[in-house]
């Protein structure tokens, strides 16, 4: 039996979450909150989403602790009472630079920093800051391929790359690859899609979209249990496209304003009274073998 959250419930939860309530648990589903486990699902598990590290960024008015924030977040992750099965990094591990050597230096730093995490099973996505100036050449040297799949306890994870092409496209080849991968799955298979940019048009005039993201969503639509996690917008955001929930994560360098809440998109200045406000990471607890997910937002530092 499955209970479907109605739109009002979804919006209330989204509003609570976007208000920045530390540690709030957010149920991801509109369509997948099963009241009884079943369907032969795998065992439940928890993973972490860390996003938009932007290592190399400098801007004291935005983050005076630009070189310390990541280490603090890593210490917090390592101190969590329950360690995740794995950690996904949803892009912009580094801040962009024109210098290919400096780009590699920043990527190497991130590789070494995340090596300090207790959880060694990690998955990486590129962001446009990592990959768009060299079509992910340097990123691949450090973190491997930019689109791939993996499976964990019965859930099929699909990592999409909408950043290596500087126009923010997935491209026809990747969309065909997606179709081929999905074609192997049952329509009720639990699927998690990981991307950097939103696949839907959140705010195209702010570059918060994927040029051909609609093609990916169309490919995913026939599948009943799909959940998308992404980064790029440096804030929590929750939106449905049909029955598919899309969840954006906070970043770990600077927050950005809510879509179209200000005339011009720009990082939100540092709040000395509330350091690291708007930054953080998220844990994702699968429920009923991937029918649904409970999200918990964590601050940079342990409180």
């Amino acid at each position, binding site marked *: 039996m499955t209970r479907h959250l109605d739109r009002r419930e979804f919006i209330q939860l989204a509003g609570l979450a976007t208000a920045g309530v530390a540690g709030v648990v957010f149920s991801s589903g509109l369509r997948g909150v099963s009241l009884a486990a079943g369907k032969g699902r795998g065992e439940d598990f928890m993973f972490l989403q860390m996003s938009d590290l932007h290592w190399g960024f400098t801007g004291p008015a935005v983050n005076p602790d630009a070189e310390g924030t990541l280490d603090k977040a890593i210490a917090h992750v390592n101190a969590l009472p329950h360690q995740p099965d794995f950690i996904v990094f949803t892009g912009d591990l580094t*801040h*962009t*630079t*024109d210098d290919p050597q400096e780009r590699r230096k920043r990527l190497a730093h991130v590789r070494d920093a995340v090596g300090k995490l207790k959880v060694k099973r990690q998955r990486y996505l590129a962001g*446009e800051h990592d990959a*768009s*100036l060299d079509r992910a050449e340097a990123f691949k040297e450090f973190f491997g391929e930019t689109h791939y799949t993996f499976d964990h306890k019965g859930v099929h994870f699909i990592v999409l790359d909408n*950043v290596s092409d*500087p*126009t*923010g496209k997935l491209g026809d080849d990747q969309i065909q690859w997606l179709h081929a991968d999905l074609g192997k799955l049952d329509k009720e298979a639990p699927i998690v899609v990981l991307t950097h940019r939103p696949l839907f048009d959140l705010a*195209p*005039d*702010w*570059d918060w979209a994927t*040029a051909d993201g609609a093609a990916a969503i169309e490919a995913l639509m026939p599948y009943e249990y799909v959940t998308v996690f992404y980064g790029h917008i440096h804030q929590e955001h929750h939106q449905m496209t049909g029955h598919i929930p899309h969840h954006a994560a906070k970043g770990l360098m600077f927050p950005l304003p809510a879509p179209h809440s200000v005339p011009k*998109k720009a990082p939100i200045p540092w709040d000395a009274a509330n350091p690291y406000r708007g930054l953080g990471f998220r844990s994702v607890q699968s429920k009923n073998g991937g029918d649904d997910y409970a999200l918990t937002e964590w601050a940079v530092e342990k409180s």
Partner: protein
Amino acid sequence: MKRIITVTALVVFAVVGTAVGWHRFATAAVPAGTEQVVHMTAKRFEYTPSEITLKKGVPVILEITALDRDHGFKIPDLGVRADLKSGEVTRVRIVPDRVGTFAFRCDVFCGDRHEDMAGEIVVVD
């Protein structure tokens, strides 16, 4: 090489070279050859000029030269976009058929201040 992108609701493309483009701006075709030409340049991280005032109903060709590298030109509210190839001139033909302010921006990631590369077209009566 010059590249021409014609932008009218009747899909009147006048394309020279390898231009690719589409539009949703005008509601009627206007004979070619009567356009006002606006010269623009694109380089990291600015268009010059970044504010352009056009008169409603007067067809215009935006002649945009990409000075330093590949860029994009996109007017999201109008469904207009074009690739601007480095060292080339791209011609975007539009027929402003309604009054308003329409933002344009680069949609080809070009560096740290890519998001500042933007401007506005103001259409007046």
